[in-house]
């Protein structure tokens, strides 16, 4: 049967089989084990060591966002609803970082349990709407 198909068609069937196999393995393993960030609860459960670089993701707790323009001191609390972590950063926050919205921070835990962020990333959702009449977009680009 293989002789009748010819070498190229056998190669095609082998390549298709390889594609399906690799795809199935990749999806199964990537979907289960890729960790871009830990939630505050996961960081607590795993016991991330002091000084070890980690990424935390969650919501910026309402009423916790403080930025001092003179000292460039940025402070907020990141929460997943169960655990909270106080984040201390340096530098202006991304324009879309706001209370109640998502954020991802990269950095290390200090000995006092606060998280020293070297990078603060705002997470935004996939919803786009026009501003309501009279309102300006909350994030304005340009000067």
């Amino acid at each position, binding site marked *: 049967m293989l002789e009748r198909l010819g070498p*190229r*068609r056998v*190669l*095609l069937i082998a*390549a*298709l089989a*390889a*594609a*399906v196999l*690799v*795809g199935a393995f*990749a*999806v199964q393993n*990537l*979907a289960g084990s*890729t*960790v*871009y*960030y*830990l*939630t505050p609860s996961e960081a607590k459960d795993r016991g991330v060591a002091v000084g070890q670089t980690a990424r935390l*993701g969650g919501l910026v707790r309402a009423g916790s966002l403080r930025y001092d323009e003179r000292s460039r001191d940025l402070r907020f609390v990141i929460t997943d609803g169960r655990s909270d972590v106080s984040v201390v950063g340096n530098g202006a*926050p*991304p*324009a*879309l*970082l706001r209370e109640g919205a998502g954020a*991802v921070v990269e950095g290390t835990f200090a000995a006092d349990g606060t998280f020293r962020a070297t*990078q*603060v*990333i*705002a*997470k*935004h*959702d*996939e*919803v*786009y*709407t*026009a*501003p*309501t009449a009279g*309102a300006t*977009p*909350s*994030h*304005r*680009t*340009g000067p």
Partner: protein
Amino acid sequence: MIETTFSRGAALRAGPWLGIAAAASFAVASFMALIWAPADAVQGEVYRIIYVHVPSAWLAYLAFVVVFLASIGWLWSRRPLYDAIAVASAEIGVLFTGLALVAGSIWAKPTWGVWWTWEPRLVTTAVMFVMYVGYLLLRGLETDFARRATRAAVLGVIAVIDVPIVHLSVLWANSLHQLPTVLRAAGSPALDASMLLTLVVSVAAFTLVYTYFMYTRVQLELARQDRLRAAAESPRAQRPRLP
């Protein structure tokens, strides 16, 4: 021995019209994206990059699926036209994957706050870019036409698995990239009707540009195949001299 059933005459006549249609739809899409569509309530004007970013990513998917189908075509039937389609689509796909990455990066800086981060969607897209650059490099390694087409086709069949992986990567837990806006799992598209229409027109315009590029590039490749064949069959030069 090797024959193509591609009608050159018809293609030459269709080419300019495709080009005109692509340019015209691109002008309409630009007007809608830059002026007609409203600004976003949260992001303001910067969200308009979506009208370049999403169609570019769509074209990358489309181009690599076409590479996949053409690769199957070559392996199954040995018609050189399929190899011409595969190389044309791979080149255009690499171009638009690069454009999607660059546009995404420019969008990420003012919204997320970073140019790049090692997030699943971004990583899988970068892998896709590198794989198809590798596909084009692989084609340069072999000078024999049939062997080159076969080797490239095997990679063209296998590499396509990254397309669904890129698309599904945003659904994995703990990613940064936003979820699909139009092809949502539940409910209707999460954007205003005018924004959705602009996005649909942009995707259509980019697809026409792809079709025009494909027509032109496939013609070039078929002309190159003709030259190779003529050189190989010429009694004066048994071994074609390669540039």
